[in-house]
């Protein structure tokens, strides 16, 4: 049994329910199992994580603002989940592969994806924003939990190819009820696939509390599939980083899949179309605000002698620049050309669709500007 194996199977016994390295108050808590996985995270590295999370939060709030101003159709905020996404994604290698849901803007950011490429899909200007092979990250998945099987299949292939790269499936607490996630756990265990199931338990599946999906901690469910489960404070970027490194180490050594439950909280609505006031209390939100993932890192940095005000000023400049770039990107997002509706349906010519395309081109050509016909009575 490797050290990572022992840890993965031992963390469930933590007395307070999950592993934690930084308390909400910003105190560094020693952990005999996890400390050794983050010895390289010095003050400078911690500053980097603080910066990542702060800039990300600003980008996310810009997404909301752009939706409110009608520039984007919908935006699913990640507010509150910055540590879960940054901590896990920072553990990855560039040749690992991420299969995310629709809320992993933070993971995308860490993978080097331009936020504008995330945004253009929510604007409805494109069906996807980036080439998955350029960033080691699949296009986002809206069908709940479907990507967990894709990650498992990718991992099976990596193992068969003799690679030590790993796949990570990101999904939420609600997704654990879907058949696909359960089937993915079966396959991953059966084939000892190098995949990390990274579950962000953010407390809510739209209006449904996690208690409706499971009567026990989600990490415990993995045990029944023969997959080790780790439960970690998802608002603690250091603990998340450590736990993900443990899981990746197991995967690379041939130890198979690991399930990580990162206990976090969706502080905003499910999407900009949702109104969480209908189903949860202000007290609950306040309780989670006190466990904010970013401020605890700030407090820890300040306690270690770093001038937090200077850091905050630097980060603010960077965050403002990133938000400004995202906003400016809208101006460059031309609406797609009408005939592109037919693009990429097939990789090879398809006689029926080719004919349909020709006929529609003739139809559009009747109108002066080639497009004005498709306005009356159609979508608004």
């Amino acid at each position: 049994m490797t050290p990572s194996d022992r840890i993965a199977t031992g963390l469930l016994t933590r007395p307070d329910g999950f592993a934690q390295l930084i308390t909400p108050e910003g105190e560094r808590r020693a952990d005999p199992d996890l400390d050794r996985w983050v010895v390289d995270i010095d003050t400078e590295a911690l500053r980097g994580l603080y910066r990542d999370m702060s800039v990300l939060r600003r980008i996310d709030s810009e997404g909301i603002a752009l939706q409110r101003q009608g520039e984007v159709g919908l935006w699913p905020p990640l507010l509150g989940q910055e540590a879960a996404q940054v901590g896990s994604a920072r553990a990855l290698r560039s040749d690992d592969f991420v299969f995310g849901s629709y809320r992993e803007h933070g993971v995308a950011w860490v993978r080097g994806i331009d936020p504008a490429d995330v945004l253009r899909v929510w604007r409805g200007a494109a069906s996807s924003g980036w080439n998955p092979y350029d960033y080691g990250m699949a296009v986002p998945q809206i069908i709940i939990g479907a990507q967990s099987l894709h990650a498992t299949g990718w991992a099976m292939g990596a193992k068969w190819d003799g690679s030590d790269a790993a796949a990570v499936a990101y999904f939420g607490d609600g997704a654990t009820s879907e058949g696909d996630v359960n089937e993915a756990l079966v396959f991953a265990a059966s084939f000892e696939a190098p995949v990390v199931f990274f579950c962000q338990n953010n407390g809510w599946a739209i209006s449904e509390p996690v208690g409706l999906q499971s009567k026990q901690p989600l990490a415990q469910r993995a045990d029944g599939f023969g997959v080790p489960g780790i439960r970690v404070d998802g608002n603690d970027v250091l603990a998340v980083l450590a736990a993900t490194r443990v899981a990746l180490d197991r995967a690379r050594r041939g130890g198979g899949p690991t399930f990580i439950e990162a206990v976090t909280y969706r502080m905003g609505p499910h999407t900009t179309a949702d109104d969480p006031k209908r189903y949860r209390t202000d007290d609950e939100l306040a309780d989670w605000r006190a466990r904010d993932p970013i401020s605890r890192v700030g407090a820890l940095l300040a306690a270690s002698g770093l001038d937090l005000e200077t850091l905050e000023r630097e980060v603010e400049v960077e965050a403002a620049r990133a938000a400004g770039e995202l906003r400016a990107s809208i101006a460059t997002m031309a609406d797609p050309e009408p005939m592109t509706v037919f693009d990429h349906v097939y990789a090879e010519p398809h006689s029926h669709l080719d004919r349909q395309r020709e006929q529609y081109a003739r139809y559009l050509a009747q109108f002066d500007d080639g497009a004005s016909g498709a306005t009356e009575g159609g979508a608004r």
Partner: protein
Amino acid sequence: MTTLTLGGAINAGLRRSLANDDRVVLMGEDIGTLGGVFRITDGLKAEFGAHRVVDTPLSEAGIIGTAVGLAYRGYRPVVEIQFDGFIYPGFDQIVAQVAKLHRRSRGTVKMPITIRVPFGGGIGAAEHHSESPEAYFAHTAGLRVVSCSDAADAYVMIQQAIASDDPVLFFEPKRRYHVKGEVDDRASLADAKPMGIASVVTSGTDVTLVTYGALVQIARDAATAAAEEGVSIEVIDLRSLSPLDLGTVADSVRRTGRLVIAHEAGQQLGLGAEIAASITERCFEYLEAAPVRITGHDIPYPPAKLERYHLPDLDRMLDGVDRALGRPNSLSGVEA
């Protein structure tokens, strides 16, 4: 009579079904406390309790599969699939179980399950939120498939679907949820038009334009526009997609001699193909022109900024009418 939105009419119909039959239970994701993402079940949990209006775990196969078990015990489950494109994890339970159990049990086990599906596009939504999957279900023996187009029909048809001893796929035109209409909320279901019968919603003499769901209003608008050019369009709201009320369509086509079918779903092997073939069989000697289909393209539903180039709209319907009439149209001079 009272004025309700289409969504409000479904809510009122659900309320009446819950009140009239204590074996009716509603199940789905976010339908209880939240009242559904479209608020179609708003207030029903508060009124009837969490055991009648049930928030379920996130599993479409789970929702439909447990509805089968409840039906075995004599319940009448009414399940909500949150969006059209989310139905596929439940597809196996619908096609392999819900559709077949009455037959498999030699008529001893009834499956009076209503599966409510907000369907279709036109709301600028994200992927999987604008689909028209009705033909998959109309193709499946054992299922009834209906779609309402206005508040009055929505109120009556949801109750008829729930009262039916057969499983019913109930497709709700989501872009029409907020459109108001007059509803006779005291009408007796016994006197109502059966849900399997189509409606002639605009009378006409030159062309029969057949559609359902959200396109019904656009077809009516097309008829109004065509009338200004002296073309008389008869608009038929199919209401039922399985069975198809081909008798009503055939009666119309025998008078007009011309048929146009419109739907948001793709053309290939869609409802339009079935209707065109069936009406050609029944009315061959009456047809003055080949039936015309105006449909969504055979593509995955496009991003929001492109959906107006996908959905049949008024101009495309009129172009199809011109084709049926042999007037100049976008395919003039093109071999069929």
